[in-house]
């Protein structure tokens, strides 16, 4: 039982990170109808920027304080992601408005390649580490309930907490601010929003900026856990089933979908994996998403897609 709970919690933690990446997908999809395959590349780009600036800034400024260096690097990385968002909108997205979904999807694949290439050219292609001072030691919990308690990684716990915070603040941003309202208006109907004077291109830049920040947070968390390396770029592919499950247009869907996939992967790997040779978590999430696609294409919380003749 304790082992089951441990697996479950581990799944929830990694699920929270999937949610974070999935959130980036949902934000952009809601506001522009673009399914952004480049989200993974953005995570890598942001993580690379963060890792490298936190190395370079102390050198440039000749200071030692890790905290300040990280803070500065974070600020610079945010600016970098804003520039990236602006460039994507300026150079690609605005010419692709109203294209078919499949075309947009392929275009973002192209953008992902460009980002991967540029990121590695500027920041290098080795493995870097991000050290934001997250505690690495595991803690025991619920010792009174189970014999031996259950083991939890503190780092995972903090990461999940940060992710949850980000999700909450984004929800507030969407619900309460004027920009948030404009964003939702654009999501509902591009043309109607435009006709009441909401500047579409500015909104898109904002959305991509927000997606950039979620990418940065996801990048920092994953990066400090696993090191910043090219494989970060592929977590977009891991998070893709999450949005299918949760529904492309739903923020709560992204979160719950992420948790389901995280838990499902871990449980299936532990309890099913040994019978089939292991390594199934790579496709398990996809199969789960596929089943969903066939029976409930709009996902758990997405809006129903209706075709009209």
């Amino acid at each position, binding site marked *: 039982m304790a082992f089951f709970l441990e697996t479950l919690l581990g799944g929830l933690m990694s699920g929270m990170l999937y949610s974070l990446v999935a959130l980036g997908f949902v934000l952009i999809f809601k506001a522009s109808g673009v399914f952004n395959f480049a989200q993974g590349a953005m995570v890598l780009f942001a993580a690379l920027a963060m890792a490298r600036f936190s190395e370079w800034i102390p050198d440039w400024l000749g200071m030692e304080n890790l905290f300040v260096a990280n803070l500065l690097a974070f600020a610079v990385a945010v600016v970098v992601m804003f520039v990236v968002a602006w460039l994507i909108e300026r150079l690609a997205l605005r010419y692709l408005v109203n294209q*078919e979904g*499949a075309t947009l*999807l392929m275009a973002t*694949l192209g953008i992902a390649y460009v980002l991967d290439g540029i990121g590695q050219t500027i920041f290098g292609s080795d493995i870097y580490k991000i050290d934001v001072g997250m505690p690495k030691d595991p803690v025991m919990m619920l010792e009174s309930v189970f014999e031996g308690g259950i083991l939890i990684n503190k780092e995972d716990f903090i990461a999940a907490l940060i992710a949850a915070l980000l999700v909450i603040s984004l929800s507030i941003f969407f619900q309460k601010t004027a920009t948030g309202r404009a964003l939702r208006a654009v999501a509902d109907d591009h043309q109607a929003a435009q006709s009441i004077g909401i500047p579409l291109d500015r909104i898109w830049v904002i959305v991509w900026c927000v997606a950039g920040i979620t990418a940065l947070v996801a990048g920092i968390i994953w990066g400090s856990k696993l090191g910043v390396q090219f494989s970060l770029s592929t977590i977009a592919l891991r998070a893709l089933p999450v949005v299918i499950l949760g529904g492309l247009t739903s923020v709560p869907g992204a979160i719950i979908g992420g948790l389901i996939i995280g838990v499902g992967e871990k449980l299936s790997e532990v309890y099913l994996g040994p019978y089939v040779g292991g*390594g199934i978590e790579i*496709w398990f999430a996809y199969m789960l*998403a596929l089943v969903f696609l066939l029976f409930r*294409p709009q996902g758990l919380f997405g809006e129903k897609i209706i075709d009209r003749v």
Partner: protein
Amino acid sequence: MFYRENGQFKTSYKADQQAFAIPQDRWAIYAIVAFAFIGVPLLVDEYMFRAILVPFLILSLAALGVNILVGYCGQITLGAGASMAVGAYAAYNFLIRVDGMPALAAILLGGLVAAAAGIVFGAPSLRVRGLYLAVATLAAQFFWDWAFLRIKWFTNNASSGSVSVADISLFGWTISTPTDKYLFSLGILVVFAVMAKNLLRGNMGRQWMAIRDMDVAATVIGIRPMYSKLTAFAVSSFYLGVAGALWGFVNLGSWEPAAFSIDRSLQLLFMVIIGGMGAISGSFFGAAFIVILPIFLNQMLPLVGSLFGLEVSTALVSHVEVIIFGSLIVFFLIVEPHGIARLWATGREKLRLWPFPH
């Protein structure tokens, strides 16, 4: 000046329905094919065969398969690499498990197995499209990646899925030198390209395109979406399966599942976008582009770098390559969704009317 249709009148529908209705085009194609079979082997060295021509031919075949599905039937796939893998490993199993199985038969059977797998994983296309279909095909990609890595039976208990095939032979002709490999691949490609052209100019091709352009209207005139989409998946996967088997048997000789990973799938999709969706020639343009660009950059960039006194590392070259691919994809999707093939066709159209543009 010689590209004129004046005085050429077609007196039967038969003449009008030829694969290449303009005689100049027809002769040009014959000339290119003849040159490829006879001229190229006389002119080209071994390196060219190994590094450029054989990969180009096999990837063209694969791109043709992707183009049938994506360009003609309008169904996106991110699992083309998986179809190649199924073809390659199925052909491998036919070859080693069945006594006296001829290599060519094994390759074709591999293609058929890939077609069957393609139908299974293409089935979601009946319910979903666009992004959702992309996810379904990705599921196929990851599933097969895993299967060939972990299920030992598929790879005859080879560790980490790596298998190898000795030189194959065809009716007593052992295909061992690069020239042999080139001619064998070329022969298969020509046959398959002709079959693709035939399918696409006939009823089957029209059904696929109808589904791509307007599926509701297609149903109303009696085209069954299920039949059309699944045949497109089957034919496309068959082509990819044969290409995969060739890639393993002829180009690599020994391979592991990574040869057909998601990167391969994306590469094939990009070939079709850059080359030209919905044009057979686009498959060739795309494959040529993807094979030649890295080699070109590898040669050119260090030269350009040395002009400015910079040292260009191989890592940088590969990054530049990726950037160029990415930007070209975005560029073509924005400016010319029908790729190089359309640019070529437009040029030809101008030439037909030249010097009177109207």
